[in-house]
């Protein structure tokens, strides 16, 4: 008996490989997610806003739902693979109890093994991805480690639990069905039918529930955690209903057109309608994953773009130097500054005295926010008198040496200034055309200043460069979460689609062989494959994009800028990745099937 089971295992190792690698991938990604979500220290450290915790709970629940469907899907694949075998065993006279044991064991074994390998792989992936992100995005991470025991436990418990249920389900499904039915259970066609009333209701309910979900996401401030729950349920449900109604309707309708009678179009439509139940499920999942991945990357990139903007909003100058050396001054000049000023000052323990004449000759620029939008600025010139009254005069203080930052600034007439006994110092401030270009020079200058300050006690530097460091530190965690999750969800999406497509390859292979025998040209076959797979990519892509556009509303709370600012960039990058992935899937499938 065991030998029999093992022999068919050997026979179908290719299918098992698809199943197994799919499960490994899924658990690996789940672990990656949990490694962030369960790491409380990391979350606390990196979120000034408690909302981020909710967002992770949202993600956790959503991913669990997706995992549920994924495992259900993998399980039915396993079941369909084994149905014939077990039917045969029963015909040969094997006892049901014995077969039941075998099914149970097989499901659990495959499941647990895949989960353990998945967790290990997940740890490896987490290390790799986080390393890559920290390097390329210049991030600083604290309290983050690739191995997180809680995450591993959560993953293991969820998966083993699900497989226990799946095993039980298989047991009942297989032992309750008569042997003959098992033998012929593969490839039952679905007859897609038009029930106009039912489908209109489905569309209505779908659209309404998605609408409620969008509304909930944009009113997260009022609804708090409940909003996330509402959005979660309604959007998943709505997406599924919408696909269910529209997809069936589309396939049935398209068949009526003359276009459907040409070449292999009818065949492709039949392929789609034959597996329509599977396809609507997978399309909904892919649409959700697409939205999550794209949303996460867009948000991550949003945070990334925010850092230089905020730095720019904090000061009109890139850097300040106290008493620069001749060499330092030369370096500054080589940067071709667009603004530069030197202000003389004398400092007591409480007050900094400036020579007002300096400010009247070289006005000091402050940045002001315009209107309600926090990320639009204008530059304003100030002479000594204006600066004294300006609300924004703290920007001068920020540029001072650290020892002087909290001292009161007083602007004196030249005469009064010269009577002061304190030693005279110079504050040099400057701005270049693009401050992000000169980071290495700034870093060099800052280091020199820090070294000198040990002896001269003249402190460090301020300005946009300094602001950039501060904000980058603040946002790194959020950025990292965005990109990391984006990558994880994209991988999950890839494995979902790949799994779906590959699990049908064996059956499709026979069909395409037959088409070939009937005199189909190779280009026709290739075109049919392209179309079938394109449908699986395009539909969820479109829905996913819409979800993201609305979902970004959530981040209005966290982001200073509009979350929609510059989204063409992440969308573009994502489109290229997605297209590349389509191409790869197509090539693999063509190799398997043709």
């Amino acid at each position, binding site marked *: 008996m065991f030998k029999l089971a093992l022999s068919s295992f050997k026979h179908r190792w290719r299918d098992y490989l698809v199943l197994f690698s799919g499960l490994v991938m899924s658990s690996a990604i789940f672990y990656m997610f949990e490694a962030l979500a369960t790491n409380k220290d990391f979350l606390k450290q990196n979120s000034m806003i408690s909302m981020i915790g909710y967002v992770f709970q949202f993600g956790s629940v959503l991913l669990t739902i997706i995992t549920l469907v994924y495992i259900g899907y993998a399980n039915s694949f396993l079941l369909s693979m084994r149905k014939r075998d077990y039917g045969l065993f029963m015909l040969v006279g094997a006892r049901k109890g014995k077969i039941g044991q075998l099914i149970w064991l097989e499901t659990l074994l495959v499941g647990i093994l895949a989960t353990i390998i998945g967790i290990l792989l997940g740890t490896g992936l987490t290390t790799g991805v986080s390393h890559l992100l920290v390097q390329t995005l210049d991030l600083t991470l604290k309290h983050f480690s690739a191995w997180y025991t809680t995450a591993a436990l959560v993953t293991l418990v969820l998966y083993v639990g699900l497989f226990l249920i799946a095993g039980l389900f298989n047991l009942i499904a297989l032992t309750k069905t008569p042997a003959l039915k098992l033998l012929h259970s593969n*490839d*039952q066609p679905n007859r897609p039918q038009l029930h106009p009333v039912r489908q209109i209701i489905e569309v209505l309910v779908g659209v309404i529930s998605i609408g409620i979900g969008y509304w909930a996401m944009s009113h997260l401030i009022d609804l708090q955690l409940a909003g996330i729950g509402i959005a979660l349920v309604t959007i998943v449900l709505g997406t599924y209903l919408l696909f269910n109604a529209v997809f069936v309707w589309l396939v049935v309708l398209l068949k009526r057109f003359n276009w459907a009678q040409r070449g292999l179009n009818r065949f492709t439509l*039949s392929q789609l309608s034959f597996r329509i139940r599977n396809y609507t499920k997978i399309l909904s999942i892919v649409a959700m994953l697409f939205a999550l991945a794209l949303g996460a990357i867009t948000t991550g990139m949003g945070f990334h773009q925010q850092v230089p903007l905020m730095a720019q909003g904090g000061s009109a100058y890139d850097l300040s130097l106290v008493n620069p050396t001749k060499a330092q001054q030369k370096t500054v000049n080589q940067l071709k500054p667009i603004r530069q000023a030197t202000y003389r000052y004398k400092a007591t323990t409480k007050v900094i005295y400036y020579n007002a004449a300096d400010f009247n000759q070289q006005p000091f620029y402050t940045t002001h926010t315009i209107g309600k939008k926090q990320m639009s600025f204008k530059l304003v010139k100030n002479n000594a008198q204006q600066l004294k009254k300006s609300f924004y005069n703290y920007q001068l203080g920020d540029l001072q040496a650290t020892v002087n930052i909290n001292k009161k600034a007083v602007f004196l007439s030249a005469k009064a200034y010269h009577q002061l006994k304190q030693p005279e110092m110079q504050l040099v401030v400057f701005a270049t055309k693009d401050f992000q270009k000169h980071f290495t020079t700034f870093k060099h200058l800052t280091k020199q200043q820090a070294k000198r300050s040990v002896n001269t006690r003249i402190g460090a530097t301020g300005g946009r460069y300094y602001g950039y460091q501060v904000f980058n530190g603040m946002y790194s965690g959020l950025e990292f979460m965005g990109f990391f999750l984006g990558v994880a969800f994209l991988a999950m999406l890839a494995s979902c689609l790949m799994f779906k497509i590959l699990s049908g390859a064996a059956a499709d292979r026979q069909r395409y062989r037959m088409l070939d025998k009937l*005199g189909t040209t190779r280009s026709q076959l290739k075109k049919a494959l392209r179309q079938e797979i394109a449908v699986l990519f395009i539909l969820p892509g479109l829905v996913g994009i819409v979800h993201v556009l609305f979902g970004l509303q959530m981040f209005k709370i966290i982001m200073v800028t509009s979350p929609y600012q510059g989204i063409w960039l992440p969308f573009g990058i994502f489109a290229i990745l997605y297209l590349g992935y389509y191409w790869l899937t197509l090539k693999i499938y063509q190799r398997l099937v043709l």
Partner: protein
Amino acid sequence: MPTTPIMTVADLHKTYGKAGSKQYEALKGIDFDVQPGEFVGIMGASGSGKTTLLNMLATLDQPTSGEVTIHQQPITHLKGNQLADFRAKEIGFIFQDFNLLETMTAYENIALPLMLQNVASKKIRPAVEQVATQLGINDFLTNYPNELSGGQKQRVAAARALINEPAILFGDEPTGALDSKSARELLDMFTKINQEQAVSILLVTHDPFSASYCQRILFIKDGKIGQELRRDQLSRRDFYQQILDTLGTFEQ
């Protein structure tokens, strides 16, 4: 009768296995002609090379040497689109199983060759209905293959093979999986289309009853044609007896 044959087979050889590895010569020089409108049977013991021969004739496999000509066209070196076009226009086949695409209804299965040729969609439905009527499967056109009996499936397969009016129809044990009643119906249908439409048929079988429907039978033994039997004016019952006798001596 000095008509030009619809198919000629000249000195056909097939060796399985690559040079150097273990080789097996399945066909050792086969020669024969098929006249237009002829109904020819090919018989032989299991493993004698019947399927191998048919695959070669139906362009599904390439011979090691020799040539097959259908409609004056040499077919052994057709490739790519030419091969696809040839299969779609000139020949039809029915196999023992794996005949139909289970994702498509009977109607769609039958219409497929016409769609592949991009025939105007207006002409497709009448054409399908005509063959379907001829083969008595009008009532099942909206069924999926798994909703059809074995005999009905083979008739759908036959309809699909006939829809583009091929020069020659190949069958590899098409009655193999059928009970005797369904087998008889299918064979009657073959005879009918053979007589009414003058379609040439080449039928591989190991079953003497099926073979008795043919006009001429080629017996294959060890990769060669060992004997040929003509029905001429015999009744089918007598021909059947003759086949049994021949098999008795031939197999020894």
